[in-house]
């Protein structure tokens, strides 16, 4: 396994596989960061339940734009222009979870609770990454993602206090986003995932990260008094 630290100036000297994998993962991360606001800003910024929530949606989007900015800068340093992801249609996003639109507060809340948590997992994969310029960005970005997760979880719990109809809508959102979320980790038998680990770009394989996520999230879903969806039903990437 590769453990050296690679600086920008050394990138071009690296094995072509390393270069390809790093370019790919930074492009996908940039796409996911801006993909969130593309999902929810249009409908949720004007329609969040309170004025404070509207402003918090705006702040969340601002933070995601800033995360995009930071990864886009990293991409630029290694010769990749990711500006195309700013405006590409949602249907063309790299990760399927970002290929729709969020139109209800239940979906927005559960998206924060479940999908921003995957954002945290993806960022934590870079802790100790052999590409040194990534690491200094992580504390602030992860901290902001933790804020989004907490806001999503709080809003989800709030919705559960509003009667059976609201509870059913939340369960439906959990059923949808949990499966989308599990697919976000990719295939368990992925050669690329092993190569990311080999080059020290990621810490864990897809299967290891997904397993940790399921353990964390299923306990939280149960603690809210909700049903944990069937882990396999509707999955595309096993």
């Amino acid at each position: 396994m590769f453990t050296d630290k690679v600086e920008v100036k050394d990138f071009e000297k690296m094995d072509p596989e390393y270069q390809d994998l790093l370019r790919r993962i930074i492009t996908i991360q940039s796409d996911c960061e801006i993909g969130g606001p593309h999902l929810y800003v249009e409908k949720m910024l004007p329609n969040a339940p309170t004025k404070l929530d509207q402003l918090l949606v705006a702040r969340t989007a601002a933070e995601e734009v800033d995360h995009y900015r930071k990864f886009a800068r990293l991409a630029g340093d290694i010769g990749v222009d990711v500006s195309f992801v700013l405006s590409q249609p949602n249907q063309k996003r790299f990760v399927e979870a970002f290929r729709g639109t969020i139109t209800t507060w239940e979906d927005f809340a559960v998206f924060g609770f479940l999908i921003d948590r995957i954002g945290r997992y993806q960022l934590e994969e870079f802790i100790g990454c052999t590409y040194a310029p990534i690491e200094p960005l992580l504390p602030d970005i992860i901290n902001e993602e933790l804020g989004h997760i907490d806001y999503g979880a709080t809003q989800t719990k709030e919705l559960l206090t509003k009667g059976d109809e609201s509870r059913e809508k939340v369960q439906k959102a959990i059923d949808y986003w949990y499966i989308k979320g599990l697919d976000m980790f990719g295939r368990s038998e992925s050669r690329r995932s092993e190569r990311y680990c080999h080059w020290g770009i990621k810490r864990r394989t897809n299967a290891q990260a997904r397993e940790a996520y399921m353990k964390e999230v299923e306990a939280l879903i149960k603690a809210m008094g909700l049903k944990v969806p069937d882990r396999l039903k509707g999955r595309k990437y096993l």
Partner: protein
Amino acid sequence: MAQAVDTKEVDEYLEQVVQALHRTVRYAIPHVKKDAEVADKAVKDCEEILSVVMEGNVSEWLK
């Protein structure tokens, strides 16, 4: 994926955009309960700023 734009300039532009969004939200939050107009204007401003970001017309930004 050839380098088509000056990513440093895009970075600087977006940094200003993000700061503007944060300033707008920070100013409005204390007014949420007492002055709905301030909050409404802030939301509108944020909508406008974010729509420019998501249009992604980078060449326009850098003119």
